[in-house]
């Protein structure tokens, strides 16, 4: 999910018909720049080198999304697939990683690990983050652990996400505290990129793997 604004221009993107290491190359109608979809970056043309701003988004079941956002609208084009993409998407978790960026580097965490530790506190170059996974909805989210002036540390108590500092309860999909002293507070989301492992490593060969 990207912001279409670049250097003050609003861009309109097309599928270019080109693939770069089997990854989608986009082209904008305004400048004809070629863009890498996976990197969000202009690769050739007038806006080469420009980085599109990624917007936090979630890949999640429809049931989970509409529960969280009852007023949501939904794209209504004709189907191109019949039930190929369901909550069984990660049935082979070793094929997938969750990618994220810090100021200096690119990181990834295997879904295999995330499924066994669905609430994972990390420090990405001193950026304290928490990775969360919800099996039912397949939501894989990342939030900042720094809230107001403190850095929270999260853990699972039974199936409930709590922070160790205040023992508040947090919704791992929305990042919102639902009970306890922090009730109503909202963790800031961080761009989380679920990706095929091979694809991620191809484009980010120096990505730092999360070590359990």
């Amino acid at each position, binding site marked *: *999910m*990207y*912001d*279409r604004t670049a250097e003050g221009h*609003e861009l*309109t993107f*097309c*599928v*270019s*018909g*080109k*693939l*770069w290491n089997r990854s*989608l190359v986009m082209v904008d109608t305004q400048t004809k720049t*070629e863009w890498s*979809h996976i*990197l969000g*970056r202009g690769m050739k043309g007038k806006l080469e080198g420009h*980085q599109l*701003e*990624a*917007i*936090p988004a*979630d*890949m999640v*079941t*429809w*049931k989970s*999304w*509409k529960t*969280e*956002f009852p*007023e*949501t*609208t*939904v*794209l*209504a*084009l*004709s*189907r*191109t697939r*019949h*039930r190929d*993409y*369901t*909550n069984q*998407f990660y049935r082979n978790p070793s094929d997938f990683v969750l990618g994220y960026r*810090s*100021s200096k*580097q690119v990181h990834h965490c295997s879904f295999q690990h995330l499924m066994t530790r669905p609430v994972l506190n990390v420090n990405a170059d001193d950026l304290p983050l928490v990775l969360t996974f919800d099996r039912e909805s397949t939501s894989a989210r990342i939030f900042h652990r720094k809230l107001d002036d403190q850095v929270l540390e999260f853990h699972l108590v039974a199936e409930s996400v709590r922070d160790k500092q205040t023992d508040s309860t947090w919704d791992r999909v*929305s990042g*919102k505290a639902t009970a306890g002293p922090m009730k109503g507070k*909202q963790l800031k*989301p961080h*761009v989380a990129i679920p990706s095929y492992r091979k694809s991620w490593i191809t*484009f*980010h*060969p*120096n990505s730092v793997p999360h070590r359990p």
Partner: protein
Amino acid sequence: MYRIQVQRLALIIALLQPTKVLADAPPYDPKTVIEQPFPPIVNARFVTAAKVDDSIVTDDELVLGVEIEGQARAYPINMICGPRREIINDRLGGRAIAATW
């Protein structure tokens, strides 16, 4: 429910350092599969959640979901697969966005 606010966006932008992040990417050598780009998808049709039935998306099917300034939108994966559909140019919460797959 999260809110995307300008200062958060500034932080996200600040977190991206293009030259460092890109220094290790493979060389840009795209292959042409189809000679001409596909036309862009703009002004696509949307419906409210109440109007969704199984022909659009079922409960266990995946969507790409985004919320901006209190407006939420879902893009069912089962209709953005395929070269003609992989980029949805859209506007949400006052921002111009592209949902890409």
